[in-house]
C-alpha cells in the first residue's frame, strides 16, 4: 500500500486530539472505512481531501472532549468515592490526623474567640436606629496642655435643640457616682439601701427617642418629663422591689429626694456604653444641687453634662461643628471660648476614644485582629507542613492511582476532600473550644459586662466572615499539599524513589517554618516586655506606703461627725493611725485646679492637682518632707498648704526652702506654703508626676485611710465595719485596701497580659507542632542519607548536626525578622507609660534562648531516633 492510500496523518492526529475518547473509535473507524471506499471510487487524492473535510466536520460540540467530565462517571459518584477513601485514609493515620486537626482547631478557636471579641467591641452603640445620624459632643479644655473631657456645659444641649432646625433631637445626660438609693419601708425607715455608681444617670425624655430602648411598662414620652421621676431597668426593679410591676412605687435618692417610678425598661444590652439601670429625670438636678440650682443649670463654664445630638437625615456633620463654634462664641465669655473647645464625634466612636473614656481603642482592636490572623496562619502553616510531610508515605498510592488512569484533577479532588474533612472537623472542634473559652473571656472582661457567646456568630455578617475564614483555611491549608501530592511522577513514586525535589520544594516549607519562628518569637518578645512592665508597675516604689491601708468612705462633711469617726476609729484595737482626706496619694486623674501664686495678678499658666488631707495624712502614707513642716493641727480653718518638689520646680524655685512662707490662692482661698514634700507618684504610671498641693479642707474629705496593724486584719476590718455602720446607718459601707485600688489602675494591662499569655502559649504550641511535622519530614527523607553517612563513619553528633544546622538557620532567620518588629511594637506600647522598664538586650536574648530551648525539645526526639537508627535497617528499606 503506497503512502497515498492512507488517510493524512495529521487529520487523524487531530481527531485523536479533539474527539472524546468514548467516541473516538467509531468515528475514526467510520472515517477510515469511507476513505478506503473512496480510494476505490474517486481516487486517493480526492479521498484524502474528503477525509480531511469530514474530520473537520467533527469539530462540533457533541464530539469534542470536555475537559472535566469526559468520563461517564458522575461527579456525585466521584465525591462518594473520594469520601469513602478519605475516611479510610484518615482512620489509618488517625494519630497524626488527630494531632494535626487539634492543632488547627486550637488556632481556629483563637481566631473565632478574637473575631467574636473584636466584633463585640466594635458593636458598641451601633445598634440604635439613628446611630448614623447621632453625634456625641465632647469638650477639650485648653490650658498649657489639653484636657479632653466627655462632657459639655449644661445649657449646650438645650440651645442646640432649640436654635438649630437641622438638629432633629438632642439629649443631655449626667452620669452619677456613689449615690445612695434606698427603698422606704413606709414607716420612716428603709427596707433596703444600695450604693450605685456608673449605672445611674440623670437624663431627659429625649433619651428614649434617640436611643433604642425597649419598654416594658410606662410611657416613654412622659416618663421623665416631670422632676422626681425615675425609670428602672427590669433587673433593678426586681433588685429594689422584688417585682417588675413597680410603677408608682417610691425610691429615695441620697436620703433626701423621693423619686416615683414611672417606667420599666428592658435590661440594657451589654454592647452599649449607655448602660443605665436607673434613669432619673434631668429636671430633678436643680433641686438636688439646692441653693443656686437654677444658676447651675445655666452655667456655661462648668463642663458637667454629656450631650448627644441627632441630626436630620442627610445633614452634613460639618454643620453641627459650625453650630458648636457659633454657640461657643455666642454664649461663652471670650476667655472661655478660647478655653473650651467643643467637638462632635460619631456615636459609634463612643467606645474607641480612650481619652474620652472609651474602653476599646482602635489600635488595640487592630492589633488583636493581627494576633488572630497570625494564630490562624500559624495553624494553617503547621497543617500544611504536617500534611506534606506525610505525603511521602502516600507516594505509592499516588503512583498506583496515576497508573490506573487517575487524572491530576481527580487526585487533587481526593486530597482536597481529605483535607476538607479534617478542616471541617477542626472548625467544629474550634467552635466547641471557643464555646468553652468564652466564659473565661467574659469573666476577664467583667468590667465591660461582656456576654459574648458562640451564638453571636449567627448573623449574616459574622457568618459571611466565618464562611470566608473556613474556605480560606481550606484553600490555604488544603491546596498546597494536594498540588504537591498530585504532581508525583507515577514511575518514580511506585519505585519508591521520590526525592525531596519531587515532594515540593523544601524552600516553601522552610519559608513557612521561618514565618512560624517569626510569629512565635514576636509573641515571646511581647510577652516578656509586658510581663516585666506589669511586674515593674507592681513593685515600683511609688514614694508612699502602700501596705495594709484600709480605705473607707466618709459620707459626711460635717466636721463634728468626721471628728467622731476619726476618734472612734483610733480607739479601736489593731489600728495604728487614721487620716481623713479626699483620695489616696496616687489616684486617677482628677481635674487639676488653676491657682494664683504669691502676689501675682493672673493665675499661673499651669494648674495644680489638689490633694486633701489632715495632719495624719503625710505620716500615715510615709510621705517625706524635704523642707518645712507638716500641718500643725487638724483645724481645717488653718491656712497651711504643702506642695511637692515638682510644684517647686515648675514655679521656678531652685531649693525647696525658698518657697516656704509664700502664698498661693486655690478655690478662692489664700494658703501659706509651710512644707515641701519629696516627689511621689500622684497618678497612674502612664503619666508623669503632677505639680501637687495639699490642703486640709474638711468639706472635701470623703475617705478615711486606716493603717492597720497587720497582726489581725480580718477582726479589725470587721470591727471597722461595725463601727462605721453604727455611725452612718443611712449609708452603705464600702471599703477597699489601698493596694487593691492601685492594682485596679492597671486592670487593662492585666487583661491584655492575660490574653497575650494565652495566645503566646497557643502560638508556641502550634509552632511546636509545625516543627515536629518538619523534623519528621526531614528524618523520613534523609533516612538513606543518614544510613550511608553512618556506614561511612559519621558519629551521632555529626548526624544530629544535620538537623541542628537546618533549624538553627531557620530560627535565626525568624529571629532577625521578629526582633526589629517586636522592638518597634513594644517600644510603642511602653511609650504609653511615663514610667516604664528599659528595653534591654536581655529581652531578645531570653526570647532567642526560649525559642532555642523549645525547638530543641520539639525536634530532639525525632532527630535522636534518626541518628540512633541502625544503618543496616535504614539502608535495607525498599
Amino acid at each position, binding site marked *: 500500500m503506497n503512502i497515498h492510500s492512507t488517510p493524512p496523518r495529521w487529520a487523524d492526529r487531530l481527531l485523536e486530539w479533539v474527539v472524546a475518547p468514548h*467516541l473516538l473509535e*467509531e468515528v475514526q*473507524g467510520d472515517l*477510515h472505512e*469511507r476513505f478506503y471506499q473512496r480510494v476505490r471510487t474517486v481516487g486517493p487524492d480526492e479521498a484524502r481531501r474528503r477525509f480531511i473535510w*469530514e474530520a473537520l*466536520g*467533527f469539530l*462540533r460540540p457533541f464530539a469534542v472532549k470536555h475537559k472535566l467530565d469526559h468520563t461517564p462517571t458522575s461527579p456525585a459518584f466521584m465525591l462518594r468515592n473520594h469520601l469513602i477513601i478519605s475516611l479510610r485514609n484518615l482512620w489509618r493515620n488517625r494519630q497524626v490526623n488527630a494531632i494535626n486537626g487539634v492543632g488547627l482547631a486550637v488556632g481556629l478557636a483563637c481566631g473565632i474567640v478574637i473575631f467574636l471579641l473584636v466584633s463585640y467591641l466594635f458593636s458598641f452603640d451601633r445598634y440604635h436606629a439613628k446611630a448614623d445620624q447621632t453625634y456625641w459632643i465632647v469638650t477639650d479644655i485648653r490650658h498649657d496642655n489639653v484636657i479632653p473631657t466627655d462632657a459639655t456645659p449644661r445649657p449646650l444641649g438645650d440651645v442646640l435643640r432649640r436654635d438649630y432646625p437641622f438638629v432633629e433631637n438632642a439629649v443631655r445626660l449626667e452620669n452619677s457616682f456613689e449615690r445612695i438609693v434606698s427603698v422606704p419601708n413606709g414607716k420612716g425607715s428603709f427596707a433596703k439601701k444600695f450604693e450605685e455608681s456608673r449605672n445611674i444617670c440623670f437624663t431627659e425624655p429625649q433619651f428614649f427617642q434617640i436611643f433604642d430602648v425597649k419598654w416594658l411598662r410606662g410611657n416613654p414620652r412622659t416618663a421623665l418629663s416631670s422632676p422626681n421621676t425615675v425609670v428602672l431597668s427590669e433587673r433593678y426593679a426586681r433588685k429594689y422591689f422584688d417585682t417588675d410591676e413597680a410603677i408608682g412605687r417610691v425610691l429615695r435618692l441620697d436620703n433626701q429626694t423621693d423619686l416615683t417610678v414611672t417606667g420599666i425598661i428592658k435590661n440594657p444590652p451589654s454592647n452599649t456604653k449607655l448602660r443605665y439601670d436607673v434613669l432619673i429625670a434631668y429636671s430633678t438636678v436643680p433641686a438636688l444641687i439646692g441653693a443656686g440650682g437654677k444658676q447651675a443649670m445655666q452655667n456655661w463654664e462648668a463642663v458637667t453634662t454629656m450631650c448627644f445630638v441627632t441630626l436630620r437625615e442627610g445633614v452634613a456633620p460639618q454643620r453641627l461643628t459650625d453650630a458648636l463654634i457659633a454657640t461657643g462664641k455666642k454664649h461663652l465669655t471670650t476667655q472661655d471660648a478660647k478655653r473650651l473647645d467643643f467637638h462632635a464625634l460619631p456615636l459609634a466612636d463612643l467606645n474607641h476614644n480612650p481619652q474620652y473614656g472609651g474602653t476599646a481603642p482602635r489600635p488595640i482592636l487592630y492589633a488583636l485582629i493581627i494576633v488572630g490572623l497570625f494564630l490562624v496562619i500559624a495553624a494553617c502553616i503547621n497543617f500544611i507542613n504536617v500534611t506534606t510531610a506525610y505525603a511521602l508515605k502516600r507516594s505509592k498510592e499516588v503512583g498506583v492511582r496515576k497508573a490506573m488512569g487517575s487524572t491530576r484533577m481527580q487526585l487533587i479532588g481526593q486530597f482536597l476532600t481529605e483535607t476538607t474533612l479534617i478542616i471541617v472537623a477542626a472548625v467544629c472542634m474550634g467552635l466547641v473550644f471557643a464555646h468553652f473559652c468564652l466564659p473565661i473571656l467574659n469573666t476577664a472582661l467583667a468590667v465591660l459586662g461582656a456576654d459574648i457567646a458562640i451564638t453571636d456568630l449567627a448573623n449574616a455578617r459574622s457568618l459571611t466572615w466565618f464562611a470566608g475564614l473556613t474556605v480560606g483555611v481550606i484553600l490555604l491549608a488544603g491546596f498546597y499539599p494536594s498540588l504537591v501530592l498530585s504532581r508525583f511522577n507515577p514511575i518514580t513514586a511506585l519505585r519508591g524513589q521520590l526525592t525531596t525535589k519531587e515532594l515540593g520544594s523544601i524552600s516553601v516549607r522552610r519559608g513557612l517554618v521561618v514565618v512560624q519562628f517569626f510569629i512565635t518569637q514576636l509573641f515571646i518578645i511581647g510577652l516578656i516586655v509586658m510581663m516585666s512592665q506589669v511586674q515593674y508597675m507592681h513593685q515600683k516604689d511609688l514614694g508612699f506606703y502602700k501596705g495594709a491601708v484600709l480605705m473607707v468612705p466618709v459620707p459626711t462633711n460635717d466636721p463634728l461627725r468626721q471628728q467622731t469617726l476619726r476618734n472612734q476609729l483610733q480607739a479601736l484595737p489593731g489600728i495604728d493611725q487614721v487620716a481623713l482626706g479626699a483620695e489616696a496619694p496616687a489616684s486617677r486623674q482628677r481635674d487639676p485646679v488653676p491657682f494664683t501664686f504669691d502676689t501675682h495678678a493672673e493665675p499661673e499658666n499651669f494648674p495644680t492637682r489638689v490633694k486633701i488631707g489632715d495632719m495624719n495624712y503625710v505620716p500615715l502614707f510615709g510621705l517625706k518632707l524635704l523642707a518645712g513642716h507638716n500641718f500643725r493641727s487638724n483645724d481645717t480653718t488653718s491656712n497651711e498648704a504643702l506642695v511637692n518638689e515638682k510644684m517647686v520646680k515648675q514655679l521656678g524655685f531652685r531649693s525647696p526652702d525658698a518657697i516656704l512662707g509664700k502664698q498661693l490662692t486655690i478655690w478662692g482661698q489664700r494658703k501659706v506654703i509651710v512644707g515641701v514634700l519629696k516627689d511621689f507618684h500622684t497618678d497612674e504610671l502612664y503619666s508623669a508626676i503632677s505639680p501637687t498641693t495639699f490642703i486640709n479642707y474638711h468639706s472635701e474629705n470623703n475617705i478615711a485611710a486606716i493603717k492597720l496593724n497587720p497582726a489581725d486584719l480580718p477582726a479589725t476590718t470587721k470591727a471597722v465595719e461595725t463601727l462605721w455602720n453604727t455611725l452612718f446607718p443611712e449609708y452603705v459601707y464600702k471599703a477597699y485596701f489601698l493596694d487593691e485600688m492601685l492594682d485596679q489602675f492597671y486592670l487593662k494591662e492585666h487583661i491584655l497580659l492575660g490574653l497575650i499569655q494565652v495566645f503566646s502559649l497557643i502560638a508556641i504550641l502550634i509552632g511546636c507542632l509545625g516543627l515536629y511535622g518538619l523534623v519528621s519530614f526531614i528524618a523520613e527523607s534523609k533516612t538513606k542519607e543518614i544510613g550511608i553517612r553512618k556506614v561511612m563513619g559519621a558519629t551521632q553528633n555529626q548526624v544530629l548536626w544535620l538537623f541542628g544546622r537546618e533549624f538553627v538557620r531557620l530560627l535565626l532567620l525568624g529571629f532577625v525578622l521578629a526582633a526589629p518588629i517586636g522592638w518597634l511594637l513594644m517600644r510603642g506600647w511602653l511609650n504609653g507609660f511615663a514610667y516604664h522598664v528599659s528595653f534591654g538586650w536581655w529581652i531578645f536574648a531570653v526570647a532567642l534562648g526560649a525559642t532555642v530551648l523549645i525547638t530543641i525539645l520539639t525536634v530532639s526526639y525525632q532527630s535522636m531516633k534518626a541518628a540512633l537508627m541502625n544503618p543496616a535497617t535504614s539502608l535495607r528499606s525498599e
Partner: protein
Amino acid sequence: MKRTYLGEFEEIVLLTVAVLNEGAYGVAITDELERQTGRSVSISAVHAALHRLAEKGMLSSQMGEATAERGGRRKRLFTVTALGSRALHDIRAVRNQLWESISPQALPAISL
C-alpha cells in the same frame, strides 16, 4: 401528551436506522440516507444526530465487529428502542390524520 420533539433530520436518521435493521452504523446510515433522499449528508452530522437520539433514549447501541478496512476499529451498531418506535409511530399517525383531513380540492394538483 408530552412527546420528545424530533427534528426532521433526526426523524429521517431514526427511520434509516429502522430500515437498515441489524447493520445500522455511521457509514451505512450515511450511505443509505444519501441513496434514499438523494441529498448529500455529512457523516459528522449523522453522528451528531445519532448521539442526540441515543441521549433522548430513542436509540440504543453496542459495539460491533472490527474490520481491517477500519484499521481494526469496531463499529457502533444502533437499534431503535421502544421509545424511538413509539415516537415514529406517533409522527406517522399525526401525518396520516392530517392527510385524511385534507379535502381533495384543497391541494393544487401536481403531476407525479
